[in-house]
């Protein structure tokens, strides 16, 4: 898929700067700024109604910002000479005429973008839809619709991919396929920006995350860094019939001990070997000793707590 040309990397950098969108009663996006780098998969996360879709649509010139700019390789979307060769986007799963065949849907787009006619066949093959080429869109399953959307985005072999909730409605096999596909594109040096609220999937897929809530940026950075930055870091989870004995054995040190709803101890501030030694010293019997690292879901929920309300 790579065209072999070496272009400056910032050619594919997305820069969102001071972006705002005021709808009649709602400030959907509020002075939002972030950057998305080439060669990485960036997860764009936020609760429902956080303004993810509006932001992506402003980036693509479908929605006019009230203030601020969004550029791709330094240019606004309508300033790109051949937008589909530069940027591919997948916005809704259902964006094709129901009575049109998959291949004709792609041919219509190719024609409008001035792309060679065989690109439609190539893009369809790329997503594995060739057997359904001549079937009408209304007969497609949700997974097939998503694949057709990706094929449309890949028509111009773009440097930048923007996907809004691409995993919606995919079965586990489809999700795994999508993950491999997007990671592959990033490995080729392309920019991949994916919005989602499937956090466990994002943890497997994304290199970087941009987290927004209530239209504002909450956190941006590499996934590991964002997770590591949380105040509540690593915890040790212990199950023991002698919880009180272990708690007193750890008292006086840096350990902070809490009890969860199942009676297990959650110990922060010390690592698992320290807890194990303390238990051995006190003669406490252990049934479980696990190191718990915070995952993206926990970090996300803590970061966006209280901001996810209906606006």
């Amino acid at each position, binding site marked *: 898929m790579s065209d072999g040309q070496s272009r400056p990397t910032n050619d594919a950098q997305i820069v969102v700067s001071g972006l705002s969108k005021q709808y009649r009663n709602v400030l959907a996006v509020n002075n939002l700024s972030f950057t998305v780098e080439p060669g990485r998969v960036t997860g764009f996360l936020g609760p429902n109604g956080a303004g993810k879709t509006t932001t992506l649509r402003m980036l693509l010139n479908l929605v006019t910002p009230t203030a601020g700019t969004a550029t791709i390789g330094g240019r606004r979307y309508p300033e790109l000479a051949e937008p589909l060769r530069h940027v591919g986007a997948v916005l809704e799963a259902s*964006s094709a*005429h129901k009575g049109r065949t998959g291949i004709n849907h792609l041919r219509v787009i190719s024609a409008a973008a001035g792309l060679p006619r065989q690109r439609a066949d190539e893009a369809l093959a790329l997503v594995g839809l060739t057997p359904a080429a001549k079937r009408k869109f209304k007969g497609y399953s949700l997974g097939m619709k998503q694949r057709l959307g990706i094929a449309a985005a890949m028509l111009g072999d773009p440097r930048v991919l923007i996907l809004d909730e691409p995993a919606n409605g995919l079965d586990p096999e489809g999700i795994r396929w999508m993950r491999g596909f997007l990671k592959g594109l990033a490995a080729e040096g392309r920019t991949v920006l994916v919005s989602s609220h499937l956090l466990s999937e994002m943890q497997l897929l994304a290199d970087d995350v941009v987290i927004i809530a209530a239209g504002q940026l909450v956190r941006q950075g590499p996934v590991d860094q964002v997770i590591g930055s949380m105040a509540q870091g690593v915890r040790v989870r212990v199950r023991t019939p002698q919880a009180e004995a272990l708690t007193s054995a750890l008292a006086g040190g840096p350990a902070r001990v809490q009890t969860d709803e199942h009676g297990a101890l959650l110990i922060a501030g010390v690592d698992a070997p320290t807890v194990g030694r303390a238990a051995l010293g006190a003669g406490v019997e252990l049934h479980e000793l696990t190191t718990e690292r915070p995952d993206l879901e926990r970090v996300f929920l803590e970061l966006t707590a209280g901001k996810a309300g209906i606006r």
Partner: protein
Amino acid sequence: MSNLVRSELLKIRTTSTWWWLAIGAFLSIAMAFPLNAWLFNTAVEGNAEDVGLTGDAASAPAQAANLYTSGQYLGLMFVMLIGILMVTNEFFHQTATTTFLATPRRTAVIVSKLIAASLLGFVFWLVTTVIDLGAGAIFLTLNDHGTLLGEWEVQRALLLNLMAYAIWTVLGVGIGTLITNQLGAVITASVLYLIGTQVVSVLFFMLSSWLDSLAVLKWQVLWPAVASQVMITPGENEMLPAWWVGVLVLIGYALVSGIIGVLLTRRRDIS
């Protein structure tokens, strides 16, 4: 721009809508032609008054022109519907997103729709006219009138009919950009076209008797469907404006709806 027009024509060709509307246009010829043939016979046999035809309108060339444009009344509505669907489909099926991603220059998209629409109007005109010419020439020759195709009045009606087809398709595109709800646009436009014309003529008739002035009736031409009738009707009298007035009115509507359509589409958020 040619890429965009090609894409628009491909959009039409790759769905079945145009096919249904073409069948509709064909049926409207099938219904109108016998009626117009009967009118022709009635008029040339000197009974024109019985069917409300007077003066120029009762002449053989005028009636031949009417015969050769059979099916125009509903045909124009069908091409208008195609024009409407060219726009509303984009919103109904959410393809506006893909369309404007491929071409962020929205003015170019609407202009290419207008061009594609008029090309399609031309094709509808061509096919319906070929059918009318065949059937009409056979009918007239069998009834010993000759084809009457040498008459300027007939030729003019055919050419103006072409213009009507192109303009009504363009007008449909304009209506589609004004009312993007598919069902809303189709119903509004069809009702205004079919029933609106009768309502307008009743209103003008009442106005005319109230003001005691037949000249008021001329102003019916401001209604697009009337304008398009005036355009292909020969002759002129105190109730009927000249054909070119109809042309100007229709072009005016096409221009205004096209411009408003472009302006609205440029500003609209696609979400």
